[in-house]
């Protein structure tokens, strides 16, 4: 159990809901590839390998339906990206949604950015609960009326109708990335956003689709000299001129867009010196950062590499202020994990609303939470077995050697096909969303 958001209380995570098919046979297209709460936490979006976006909306708690207790139900589903074919290079562009990022809400409609490997789209999700009736030029089923038959003029009136949620693509930002887009991030100015691929980062204006500014370019003149790629990028939550990007060599660069038009030269360079005693052939691969996230406060950032999560103080470049081991027991298995490609898995990480806790996924459908204040950590599992409504989750433990205690699971029994790569934490409450392959689990703190 961990200190709660309010401080002092322990979390008691309980199962709330699970979305998705129960089938053992998972369709590739249904595999969830990104999960994101919006700014208020009212909406929860998921993207999948099939290019679809599903948005869940939280039910208003009401006396009429006390049991629903803030449940998330499907609000809108739409096909964001379709598979494309690049005829020039003769290759198929996957429709898999790599990232979804919400825009802050400015009116009744909701906006989000979704991206696949090459193209970013701005979607407007709006509700329609009224319909205009009594048009002059067309009749009720939409057929045009014969203008000569119109003898009177009337004002159409708005009539209520069943709620309909529509998603429409408002902008398509295409043809700006040669390599695969790994990140998008909305700027705090709410007007611009950045998109990053393996070698470049571009800055866009949300209104302008036919051009973007390239702000980072690490492509060497000779590709054979390439030894490092960009793995993630994010805008600072408050300073609209600041962003960071992480690399495959475990470094993070913080850039200031005021300093130069091209931010190839960083303002700050974060790297932890390597521990020579733990060096192996896999040191570089496991140091590759798979995710970087600023804290809500903007004072810290968190990075996820293969075995650990690190919290960095933006004012200290030479080492992280906190390091949390996610699954250190895998260190002795790196060669096997290299062979079966698991070492290349890209785990994400997230902060809770108050920045007091962080969460990240692991294998065997385990996910881990760390309390930054108490330094306590917990391992939980997303599984159908623990899916009774409001059932409290039992902490899990991996046995690393010696005698396996009851309820512990040995490292060799872990299912490496069940990986939790994507998790999200409600911005204000203790509600978390965990993507387990094709299922989305929602857990809530009992106190909620």
């Amino acid at each position, binding site marked *: 159990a961990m200190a709660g958001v309010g401080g002092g209380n322990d979390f008691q995570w309980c199962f709330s809901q699970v979305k998705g098919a129960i089938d053992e046979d998972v369709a590739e297209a249904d595999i969830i590839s990104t999960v994101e709460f919006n700014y208020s936490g009212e909406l929860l979006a998921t993207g999948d390998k099939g290019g679809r976006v599903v948005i869940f909306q939280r039910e208003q708690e009401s006396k009429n339906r006390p049991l629903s207790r803030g449940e998330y139900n499907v609000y809108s589903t739409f096909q964001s990206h379709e598979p494309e074919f690049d005829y020039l290079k003769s290759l198929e562009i996957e429709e898999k949604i790599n990232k979804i990022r919400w825009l802050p809400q400015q009116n009744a409609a909701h906006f989000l950015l979704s991206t696949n490997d090459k193209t970013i789209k701005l979607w407007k999700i709006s509700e329609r609960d009224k319909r205009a009736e009594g048009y002059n030029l067309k009749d009720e089923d939409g057929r045009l009326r014969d203008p000569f038959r119109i003898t009177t003029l009337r004002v159409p009136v708005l009539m209520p109708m069943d709620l309909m949620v529509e998603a429409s693509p408002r902008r398509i930002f295409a043809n700006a990335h040669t390599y695969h887009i790994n990140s998008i991030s909305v700027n705090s100015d709410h007007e611009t956003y950045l998109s990053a691929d393996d070698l470049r980062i571009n800055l866009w204006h949300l209104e302008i689709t036919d051009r973007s500014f390239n702000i980072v370019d690490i492509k060497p003149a*000779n590709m054979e000299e390439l030894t490092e790629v960009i793995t993630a990028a994010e805008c600072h939550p408050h300073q609209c001129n600041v962003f960071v990007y992480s690399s*495959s060599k475990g470094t993070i660069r913080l850039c200031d867009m005021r300093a130069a038009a091209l931010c190839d030269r960083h303002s700050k360079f974060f790297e932890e010196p390597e521990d020579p005693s733990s060096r192996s052939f896999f040191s570089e691969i496991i140091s590759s950062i798979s995710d970087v996230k600023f804290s809500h406060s903007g004072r810290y950032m968190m990075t996820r590499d293969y075995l650990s999560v690190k919290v960095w103080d933006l004012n200290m470049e030479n080492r992280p202020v906190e390091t949390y081991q996610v699954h250190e027991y895998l260190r002795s298995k790196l060669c096997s994990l290299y062979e079966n490609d698991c070492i290349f898995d890209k785990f994400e990480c997230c902060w809770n609303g108050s920045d007091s806790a962080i969460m990240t996924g692991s294998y065997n459908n385990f996910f881990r939470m760390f309390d930054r204040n108490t330094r306590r950590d917990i391992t939980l599992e997303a599984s159908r077995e623990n899916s009774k409504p409001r059932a409290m989750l039992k902490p899990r433990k991996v046995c690393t050697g010696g005698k396996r205690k009851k309820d512990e699971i040995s490292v060799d029994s872990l299912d490496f096909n069940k990986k939790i790569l994507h998790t999200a934490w409600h911005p204000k409450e203790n509600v978390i969303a965990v993507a387990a392959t094709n299922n989305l689990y929602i857990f809530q703190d009992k106190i909620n």
Partner: protein
Amino acid sequence: MVARGMKRKLYGSDNGGGSVWESQLQSVLDISLDKFQRDQALVEPSLLRSVLITNTLRQVQSVVKTHLSGVSFHPKLHTQPKKQPELLSTLGSIPAGHSASLCSLGVEDMEDDLMAWPSEEDLSLATAITGILNDLDAALDDDCGLSVPQRLPLASMENLPGDGRSKQNSTISHKTDGCRASILGNSSHMSNYLQEAVIDDLLLDIDTNVFEAEANSVSPCAFSFPADQLVKYLPPFSNSSAVSLTPASPPMVR
């Protein structure tokens, strides 16, 4: 770069014999090459993945290079097998951390022999390795996803008698005979072996078990031959969408 004699530290938890380290090196090399080749066969391999795998291959190469340049082959081993035990016990007394170079041992007999190391051996060895690497290049360039590249016959590399695929440590005398056989160009063993020989086999075979008893167990290659030749031909990282390795003079990896 790994310091001479410090190889063990690459696998901190592993305090076993050098053969464990070698087999790990071999595994990493095998797996990396396999992945590299498979990725090259894809129309659009992931750039991140390619970079990480290529960097791993370069690391292996760098380790091999360090050891190749740090260890000389002792000719006594193939000319005077009887002296093996004596030599080995001498080598065995080298404490960890010392250079594996035989020159620094101060064992009197050895120095002269080292001086007398015939240069033709160097050349033929280098040529053979070049041949293998060119084949690897060519296979990759082929872009048809062959998992095992064809090999040119080795002129004088082979020193493992019998089953060339065996990765087990053989006894010293056994090894010595093998050395002699290979240097004399015994091709009957080679053709079988060569069908499947890959650079990793090469590295493993060239060597090492000769110094098995040495505490600080040793490099994959007991011969002294220009490491440049070897390292030069490991495949460079190439643009994902165009496999364009130039066998003639591949720009290389530093």
